């Protein structure tokens, strides 16, 4: 990276504006990431005032836990690779497929669904469709006693759930690669495969690496999907940690198991950094020519890409049709009489949860979006002492399973002077520090592609660093900002694992009501709540997209979608 060679190591601290921001970030990270983690470590390793590693050794010596550790790695690897491939396929098709706006709109809608659905929806839909009496396995194909539980179904469910994150990360990256470069190579006689292999793929590498990292971490931390689909022969660590705490009442064991999860998350993080180090991916240089419309894909290729994306989209839409159906019948599988009564229930009894969730999401969204862009910008653009640690610290809450983050927050913020339990603030803080890494990664990936000379030109013409950031960098990273903002909002509407420990008598959440309904066998209200969440998120994302389009039009720039394309 050119940045490394040009900047003195502590340049950012000499600028009072950035020094202040960095300090503020460290205070926030110390408070909301490191301190809770320290409380958790204290609980795990300190026994009656003395530090002991014996509990950790006990965990490592247990073959069942070792197996779960291995399984977690295999699963995360599979989901990371598979989900990134799927995301790349969608992003590439959307950007290069030459599809009409309407078709892209359809694909966008389908890919958004898994991202914005409340927990368990995909797992339960898979269970209903492919289980022993599944609509597809039994009713359609006539397979008796199909064994659904295990690695394959868990990996498939997680891939479908998380690939939209890869899509969101990769699409702005691919969109910012000037097709002229590809076309130039093509017109000079390179084959299509060669152009793809030597230009498109390497240029999108920062995005691919980031997408893989995000998906790997998502899968590593996911407990809801394996809880429903993994069965008994495929234990994974987050589920084991959850069971250790909520089943065995063993907080220490659960904490230890999830501390183990930090190891692979950190390894992947450093591998990815090491790998991207010293490579240049600059494609936005300020010198780019006008866009050419020459196509790099043959019609047959475009059709294949479209068919693949279409097939996946249809599967996703089928899952959600199932959800909509179960929200509109008396009891799914038993009584298929049409009814609105589940919606009546959620808008009467469920109203406080809906209101609380919306307030919390509305506050968390802008804060999370700003936080993501600021951290991403500083990490990618500024040199300062502790930069790598800052980046790593910002990723910790994302990589840890939610149950652990929830318990850590509960331990850290239950007592004075930092008593936050029972407030909305603890839930908002949890969302911001847990779900902004998508925005951070998106900002970093985008900035890896933007030549620093743009900002240097601005600074050498006398602009202050804040002005440069606002006038030059900010418009460039807007897509990443909206990706981050969108993800924080979506997660605020859909997350459960951490927040189940943070809700209180004053503040409750829709997702908790969904889980509650599922355990009460009230599939109807659970489905109705889920449909409502999907609708709200769509409406809000659409409104943000509209505002962004207006903002863009005023500034005379390109119109970007909320998805950052």
């Amino acid at each position, binding site marked *: 990276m050119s940045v490394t060679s040009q900047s003195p190591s502590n340049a950012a601290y000499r600028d009072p504006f950035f020094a202040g921001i960095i300090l503020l970030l460290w205070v926030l990270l110390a408070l909301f990431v490191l301190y809770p983690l320290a409380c958790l470590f204290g609980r795990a390793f300190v026994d009656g005032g003395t530090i002991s590693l014996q509990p950790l050794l006990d965990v490592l010596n247990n073959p069942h836990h070792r197996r779960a550790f291995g399984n977690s790695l295999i699963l995360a690897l599979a989901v990371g690779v598979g989900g990134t491939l799927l995301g790349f396929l969608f992003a590439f098709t959307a950007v290069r497929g030459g599809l009409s706006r309407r078709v892209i709109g359809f694909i966008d809608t389908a890919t958004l669904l898994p991202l914005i659905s409340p927990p368990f929806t995909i797992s339960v839909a898979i269970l209903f469709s492919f289980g022993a009496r599944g609509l597809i396995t039994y009713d359609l194909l006539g397979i008796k006693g199909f064994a659904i539980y295990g690695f394959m179904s868990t990996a498939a469910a997680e891939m479908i759930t998380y690939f939209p994150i890869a899509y969101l990360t990769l699409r702005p990256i691919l969109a910012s690669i000037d097709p002229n470069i590809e076309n130039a190579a093509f017109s000079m006689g390179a084959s299509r495969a060669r152009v793809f292999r030597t230009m498109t793929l390497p240029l999108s590498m920062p995005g691919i690496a980031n997408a893989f990292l995000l998906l790997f971490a998502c899968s590593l931390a996911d407990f809801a999907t394996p809880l429903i689909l993994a069965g*008994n022969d495929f234990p994974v660590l987050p589920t084991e940690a959850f069971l250790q*705490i*909520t089943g065995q009442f063993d907080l220490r064991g659960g904490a230890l198991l999830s501390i183990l999860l930090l190891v692979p998350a950190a390894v992947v993080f450093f591998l990815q950094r090491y790998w991207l180090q010293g490579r240049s991916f600059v494609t936005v240089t300020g010198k780019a020519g006008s866009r050419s419309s020459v196509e790099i894909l043959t019609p047959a290729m475009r059709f294949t890409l479209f068919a693949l994306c279409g097939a996946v989209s249809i599967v996703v839409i089928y899952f959600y049709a199932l959800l909509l159906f179960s929200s509109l019948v008396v009891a799914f*599988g*038993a009584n298929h009489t049409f009814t609105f009564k589940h919606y009546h229930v959620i808008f009467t009894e469920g109203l406080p949860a809906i209101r609380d969730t919306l307030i919390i999401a509305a506050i968390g969204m802008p804060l999370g979006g700003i936080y993501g862009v600021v951290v991403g910008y500083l990490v990618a653009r500024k040199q300062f002492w502790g930069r790598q640690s800052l980046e790593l610290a910002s990723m910790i809450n994302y990589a840890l399973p939610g149950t652990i983050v929830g318990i850590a927050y509960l331990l850290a913020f239950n007592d004075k002077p930092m008593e936050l339990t029972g407030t909305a603030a603890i839930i908002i803080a949890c969302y911001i520090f847990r779900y902004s890494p998508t925005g951070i990664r998106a900002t970093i990936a985008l900035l890896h592609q933007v030549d620093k000379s743009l900002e240097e030109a601005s600074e050498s013409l006398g602009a202050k660093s804040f002005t440069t950031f606002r006038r030059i960098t900010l418009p460039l990273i807007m897509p990443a900002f909206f990706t981050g903002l969108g993800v924080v909002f979506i997660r605020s509407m859909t997350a459960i694992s951490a927040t189940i*420990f943070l809700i209180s008598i004053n503040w409750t959440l829709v997702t908790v009501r969904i889980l509650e309904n599922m355990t009460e066998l009230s599939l109807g209200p659970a489905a109705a709540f889920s449909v409502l969440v999907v609708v709200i998120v769509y409406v809000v994302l659409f409104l943000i997209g509209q505002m962004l389009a207006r903002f863009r039009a005023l500034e005379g720039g390109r119109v970007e979608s909320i998805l950052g394309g």
Partner: protein
Amino acid sequence: MKLINRALKHVFAATTMTAALVVPMTSTYAAETLNVYSIWPENWARPMLQEFEKASGIKVNFLRFSSGEALARLIAEKGNPKVDVLFGGPVETFGAGVKEGIFEAYKPPSAAALPARFKHEGGMWTAIADDPLVFMTNKKFLADNKLQAPTSWNDLLNPAYTNMLQMADARTSGTAVTRIFSVLEVNGRNEDKAFDFLKKMRKSIQTYTKSGGGGTLPVGLGQAAGGIFFIVDALDTKAKGYDVEISFPKEGIGSAAEGIAMVKGSKNPEAAKKLIDWATSPAMQSLYAPNKINFVPAHPTVKTEASLAAILKDAKIIPIDDEYAGANRKRIIERWVQEVLNAK
């Protein structure tokens, strides 16, 4: 101009954040209030606690958690408890809570009338209901396989059930622990014999679910053929319209009490005691039947609702010996994980 706008946005965000912090503080003003974690689902806890509000004039705020989550929260909040009472949930959870030192001893007047297995010796918890286990099978599955509903533990070893039963995982569910102790009791507490049976039954298991009622919907839908559940969950499945049959093994099956306890460090101890007095007395337990809550009342003077009593009439229910279960629970679960769960 833009900068001002931006600054205004920050101010707005900061104000809403502060508002969010202040609102809950100002909203806890009422005269006498009581904060409760309920392990009973909302649709049972809400009517009961509303009746208590009417009877006592005390305002009750409650939040529902699964037993493990409620306990994990109470342990984490130990230094500064947020609630006064833990309401409902298997006695097992209360036993684990006693070990963690999260409860305050209180013996309600009704405790004297209860048999020993319905109360903690030191008064740390008291039972409010009893909940027997049952076999629940999908009727369509029975018809397809020309089977009768199982009436013996050994019926569950029938090859027709291979890979078709769902029941709870002993690491997470009190239902499962009660089930395993039932098998121990019917085998005269001969552990090797009991585990021999459990290992054989493993072949019939499709998956062990995390919660006690986790398998009821799959059985209702026919994804699984059957399982062993608490009677409340089984009757709820039936009430939802799923075509299931409830039966009992002739050798006998266990039952678990549901409890209530005061949280140590409660900020409203007098109100907490009033709720415990009320819940352990016939005042609350006579409301189970009108509210269609299929628990067996713990208080001896409250009659079991007629249709529930009819189902239980011929059932052989074995009370699980609390002392024996408490002393061996951990070891038995570990053995179950090693020999049964990880077998196959």
